[in-house]
């Protein structure tokens, strides 16, 4: 058992010091009829590193990795190239195997990184303050709704039809238990966002309006007027960004007046990972709202010799102090994913992020134009970043499966989210990142044409 340093000689000597006859005797407080005195039957016994690796590799081979196929999936998780140095740095043991930095004198590495991360996220989102991360975008979105409830003392949220359906489900689940009102309608297949219609809905009971940018259909819209309408009614505007690379090309939500900007940071540094662990981003435009924020915050201070240093701060908001009155029950953040995001952001810098975004948009424009030439296919979006919706003449769920059968991962069927027979299932959301080649686009067009024929 390669992970256990004690030898039988050690164990005997230690039991001697303790004055116990055996390790089993140390479990004397467990009632005898409930204590298992041998390994649970039917489960395998210990295995060598080689054997475990072999077993896991066999399982991994039963999957089609994104790198091994023309790949166009997005809808809340995006495949970008992650520079090799990102994965090297997050595997440094001093980051990988450290705990939450509760002893700041010996955790300045993690703390300074978190301070830099918070600063990077705030700038990306056009906000004043970001926290040290949340579990993922969907839970950050729900936390934003509850935070807006605390700030406005109103418990009604209006969700855009373009909000990711998993984020909507998450909010609906939580709202049902916590007594928030949720106003939401399924999306219609139009080229425009519903921002204007949302502005008309805001009233004196609205705590917040939640929009996604770009939205689940890849649409983008100016939220300035919606922000104004929210503020006039005393409500907050929450903007959700599931593809942060977009903000290398698009005006930030903070610049347009969004009060809380949350997001999924997976696209930068973290990778696809079959859905997790991901990285929740959470920022506020007005620093006066900081005390209503959930999650950990890292702040600057000085040590006893006057040297600059960093600590976790404003902890009285959190569960370990406030207990049942905390702003959230969140404890863990996504520290290592935040590190990956931050390293990737540092490698890119503004210049690199703008270039990355431009490359994504360039390829997406090419793909949209090419795919719209496939007979029977029309492109829905006027404006988009790296993801757009195609309307096809059949149920896209089957189309996606058929394309997968031909080795092409051709997009996400909206029917997967909205299987209600109202026409939404005849559409396909296609994401195009810098990892896509011209050959991939051509292959998707050909396969689409073949499957539709």
């Amino acid at each position, binding site marked *: 058992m390669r992970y256990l340093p*004690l030898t039988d000689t050690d164990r005997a000597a*230690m039991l001697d010091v303790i004055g116990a006859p055996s390790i089993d005797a140390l479990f004397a407080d467990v009632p005898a009829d409930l204590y*298992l005195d041998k390994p649970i039957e039917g489960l395998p016994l210990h295995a060598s590193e080689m054997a475990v690796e072999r077993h896991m590799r066999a399982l991994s081979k039963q999957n089609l990795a994104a790198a091994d196929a023309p790949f166009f999936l997005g809808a809340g998780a995006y495949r970008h190239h992650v520079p090799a140095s990102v994965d090297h740095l997050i595997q440094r043991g001093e980051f990988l195997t450290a705990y939450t*930095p509760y002893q700041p004198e010996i*955790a300045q590495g993690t703390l300074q990184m978190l301070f830099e991360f918070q600063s990077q996220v705030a700038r990306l989102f056009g906000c004043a303050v970001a926290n040290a991360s949340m579990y993922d975008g969907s839970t950050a979105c729900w936390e934003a709704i509850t935070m807006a409830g605390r700030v406005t003392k109103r418990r009604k949220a209006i969700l855009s039809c373009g909000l990711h359906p998993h984020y909507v489900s998450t909010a609906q689940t939580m709202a049902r238990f916590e007594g928030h009102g949720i106003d939401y309608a399924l999306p219609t297949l139009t080229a425009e966002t519903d921002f204007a219609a949302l502005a008309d809905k805001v009233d004196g009971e609205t705590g917040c309006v939640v929009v996604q940018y770009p939205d689940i259909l890849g649409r*983008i819209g100016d939220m300035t007027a919606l922000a104004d309408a929210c503020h006039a009614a005393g409500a907050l505007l929450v903007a959700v960004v599931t593809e942060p690379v977009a903000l290398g090309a698009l005006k930030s939500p903070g610049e347009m007046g969004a009060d809380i900007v949350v997001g999924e940071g997976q696209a930068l540094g973290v990778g696809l990972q079959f859905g997790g662990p991901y990285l929740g981003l959470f920022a506020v435009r007005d620093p006066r709202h900081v005390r209503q924020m959930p999650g950990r915050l890292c702040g600057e201070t000085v040590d006893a010799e006057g040297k600059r240093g960093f600590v976790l701060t404003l902890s009285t908001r959190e569960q370990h102090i406030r207990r049942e009155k905390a702003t959230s029950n969140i404890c863990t953040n*996504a520290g290592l994913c935040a590190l990956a995001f931050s390293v990737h952001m540092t490698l890119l*810098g503004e210049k690199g992020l703008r270039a990355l975004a431009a490359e994504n948009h360039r390829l997406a424009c090419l*793909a949209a134009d090419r795919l719209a030439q496939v007979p029977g296919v029309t492109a829905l979006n006027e404006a988009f970043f790296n993801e757009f919706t195609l309307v096809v003449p059949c149920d896209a769920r089957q189309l996606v499966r058929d394309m997968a059968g031909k080795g092409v991962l051709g997009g996400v069927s909206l029917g997967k989210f909205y299987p209600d027979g109202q026409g939404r299932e005849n559409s396909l959301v296609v994401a195009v990142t810098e990892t896509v080649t011209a050959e991939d686009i051509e292959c998707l067009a050909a396969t689409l044409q073949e499957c539709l024929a």
Partner: protein
Amino acid sequence: MNAPNMSGWKPGTPQAPEGSDGVHTVTGNRGLMLEEPLVFEIGNTETTGVDFPSPLTLAGGAGGGPDTGSGSTPTADSSRVREGNRLGGLDRSESFGLPGLSEPETVRHYTRLSRQNYAIDCGIFPLGSCTMKHNPRLNEKVARMPGFSDLHPLQPESTVQGALGVIDELAHWLVSLTGMAGVAMSPKAGAHGELCGILTIRAALEARGDARQVILVPESAHGTNPATAAFAGYAVENIPATAEGRVDLAALEARLGPDVAAVMITNPNTCGLFEREMKAISDAVHAAGAFVYCDGANFNAVVGRVRPGDLGVDAMHINLHKTFSTPHGGGGPGSGPVVLSEALMPFAPLPFVRKTDAGFDLIEEEDDAAAPQSFGRMAAFHGQMGMFTRALAYILSHGADGLRQVSGDAVLNANYILRRCEDVLDAPFGATGPCMHEALFSDAGFAEGVATLDLAKALIDEGFHPMTMYFPLVVHGAMLVEPTECESKATLDQFIMALRSIAERARAGDESLHQAPQLAPRRRLDETLAARRPVLAWEG
């Protein structure tokens, strides 16, 4: 918000303060201990450490066709390629001040930062309740296999059968090790798992038309317990503890009634003790029509030796980073699967994996008929896959026999520390019998003016990470020491030597303890200043 104390020295500027050993350097570096400025102070918006294959500008909003780059162009009819970008006039024109570094500078920046951290790879990290055990590198290797790490969560099921197989295989282990009926795999961390368990209980109560309002939580509980109960819409009441540091069964029974939805109990509890009367507690709770939630943060102490299902538990989250060695990563990511009893399984959240003759299916919202009573979705996608692969690699490595040895050695190590230190450190429950995986001490016996904090900071100077301080709240000046099974006897002996020496100084009232740590990258930090004048982002 103003920056605190602008005279505070920072890396990259001259006149660093003299070190506590009297040695002065102009850079502030001290040999291998290298100071590092913020990336905002050394980077700029013109530098990047990433290259792209094609020209780097975005076509303007009006005129100028899309940049087709230097790569090959799809064979589209070029007359139908539209001009201009498609950003709808929302181009980000203002600079947003994001600094970049070249690759060598980036590697050096983060490597230097990393060296200011203590970590389990550097030495014993005896944080009680947090369980800092060795993170096997096989787990990292496995998690990075492209067949796991490079999968999109919305790929067709036929292309991810192996990934769903991992979830199913890990689920089987968790269910077998806990003796429960099933498991919800999607919660993202321990506290999220608590929320999952409590929402499952609430859904089950609502299904029988029972609107109970109260959740009972012992005073010694983790802060997440009452926060979770409140987050799920319940009123929280405390259960008192006995003088032996365990739940007061009589007081609990007296409080149980038709308004109590659930009792949240940590077992082994946060005092490092096994709740001997757990079965009686569960029986009483069930008799009152309520459910038992067990905080599984300390499951690592009993894995392979006690099955929570046998104790009458209805729901328990398992922190994969505690019991099953996934890395803490400086504060996450976590993963908190929740095992559930037969009574609660129908109400488990979406999505979940179902095994059929043809392979694995993923049941989501649109499959209403397959899960009519599920309380719904708690997060996007299907859980912390990257943690599942690591945890499964760990579990397979140890196997049923090794996991039993894991809990045995963890408890042995903790008792060894308890018995070797209890003559110089007060052990409030030491006389009641063996502890579980963590040894609890208090500050009783310290000289006036010396606090638990001082002892903890002095451990830093000796090269150890301190234990958990001031938790649980029920013990004054608490010190909770959890060595885990991953420490050798030699490491424990050295740690004990240091701990005993500092404890004796604390008893003697050694004033110099207030100055500790003196040898760490930073001295004690001014947390009051940080909270009074919060600076939470770089403002240069």
